[in-house]
């Protein structure tokens, strides 16, 4: 399965790069969301996969019994997911506001900060 995850991460990364290179900032956002998923898969698979037991310690036991999933990457991903969510929400709000004030979501038509010498 780890190979499958590696392939999937690659596919998601490729798709997200394609989207992020689009003129449409909305599609950029889509790409960003996908890229986060790709990164999470990379971290997850990097901690190596197990057959399924969650990293819990049964009542009465001092340690998990048998092989359980690697808890550390999960914690990292949790952190990363929440951070990505925060960044994504911000980026979304920014695109939204930019559309309202600048009247476009086409990055090629944004020329206020650059493109002319005047600000």
């Amino acid at each position, binding site marked *: 399965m780890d190979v499958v995850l590696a392939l999937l991460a690659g596919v998601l990364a490729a798709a997200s790069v394609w989207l*992020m290179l689009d003129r449409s*900032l909305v599609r*950029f956002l889509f790409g*960003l969301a996908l*890229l*986060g998923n*790709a*990164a999470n898969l*990379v*971290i*997850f*698979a*990097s*901690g*190596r996969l197990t057959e399924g037991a969650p990293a819990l310690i049964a009542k009465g036991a001092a340690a998990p019994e048998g092989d359980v999933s690697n808890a*550390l*990457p999960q914690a*990292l991903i949790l*952190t*990363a997911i929440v*951070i990505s969510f*925060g*960044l994504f929400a*911000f*980026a979304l709000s*920014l*695109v939204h*506001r*930019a559309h309202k*004030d*600048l009247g476009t979501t086409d*990055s090629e038509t*944004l*020329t*206020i*900060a*650059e493109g002319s*010498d*005047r*600000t």
Partner: protein
Amino acid sequence: MSAAWLLFLPIALPFAGAVLAFIAGRAGDRRAPQWVNVGTTALMTLVSLLLLSAVWRDGPQAIQMGGWAAPFGITLVADILGAVMVVITALSGLAVAVYAMADIDEGRAKLGWHALYLVLLAGVTGAFLTGDLFNLYVWFEVMLIASFCLLVLGGDKAQLDGGLRYVALNLVATVMFLMAIGLLYGLTGTLNMADLHVTLKTVDAPGLVTTIAVLFLGAFGIKSAVFPLFFWLPASYHVPPVAVSAIFAALLTKVGVYALIRLFTLVFTADVDYTHGILLVIAGATMVTGVLGAAAQNQVRKILSFHIISQIGYMVMGLALYTPLALLGAVFYLVHHIIVKANLFLVGGVAKRITGSFELDRIGGLYKAKPWLAVLFLIPALSLAGIPPLSGFWAKLVLIEASLEVEAWVIAGVALVVGLLTVFSMSKIWLEAFWKPHPDGDAAVGAVALTRGETVALVAPIVLLASITVIIGLAPQPFLDLAARSAQELLAPEAYVRVVLGGLP
């Protein structure tokens, strides 16, 4: 104060200040957040100086967060480099916080500007003090989101446009960094940087380590704004309020450079010829493209922005050469640059207040009308250009000597020529804004009068930073000592590793 407090307070203080500033601001007092901000940064400065003195006296300091020994928990650790960076962060933070009292309007303050500012500082200090790679990512994100907000807060159109570019490109860097961490963890099973130093020696996949190193180089390269990854910087640094530009210019790229230095001395040193060879090429290209970019601009903040890039090249050059003298130069350069760059933006802001614009062809007459401002501009400007006896001179001197020492003629030549081009483009600001008469006549200079309080808030930080520049220039030895010790620690990180890993082998 115990090491635990010394290491934790520089991070905890700004967070506490942020919460306080925001709640105080909501509670109604208009000026409270400003004072919380100034008070917090002043305290940070104090604590960080204590931290630096402790590190200077006793060597690297570390604490294990939560009491969990490394490499299991997260370690906060300060060697000279880390401590110096925290001091300089707090100091420039304080200066800009004071400046912000007269620069940040009420609308922005109400939206939480001061809280965001303090979170930014917290993120930066966190990045300098953490000994854990993933934790470094987290601090990068803290810094990043705070910078996003500061950049677009208040939201005029240019800010939104510049903000989009900044956000888009930095988010990419962030994800790259995250992936690189995941891969390195997959290879080594650890996230602690000192532990990585040890573990990587036993990993038998040199090619893969180098590949991952290059991925990190890319991620931090974007953050540091090196060639050809710097686009986000000139696209955005000229749009926010001056205080924001100044603190960005001082700190953000430097966190990237710091991360490069940390990783490429502590972790990725297996194939120095390849990785640092790439860094050297990047350094040269960054210096040249940055300074040419500056030469092409006609707007004060755009010129200064491109200069950041060019100067980053010098720091990377120090890292790339990877000798004691070169690293000394890189560290010295970092410190010098933060002070000088923040100051130039601050002076630029005052010049704009007085003359009405950042556009060089619309302003002038400052030399005649405000000679004190001319002096305050000349000090950081000449320092940036490497003119003695100011801080930048020593920084460049060390790096050039370091490159001559190892017979790296090309980079030495580039560094020298770029120095001249820096003089050229800084003199443009001088000729246009200061010497040239104001196109609208003398009366246009100082048309909008500043109140006494505003003048103090705007000028005091500039004077403070300029004095530091002069002091470093006239009495460089203590700073060279610091940088030399730091270079020594970076090249032989045993003490750092020992204090982080404690009793572990």
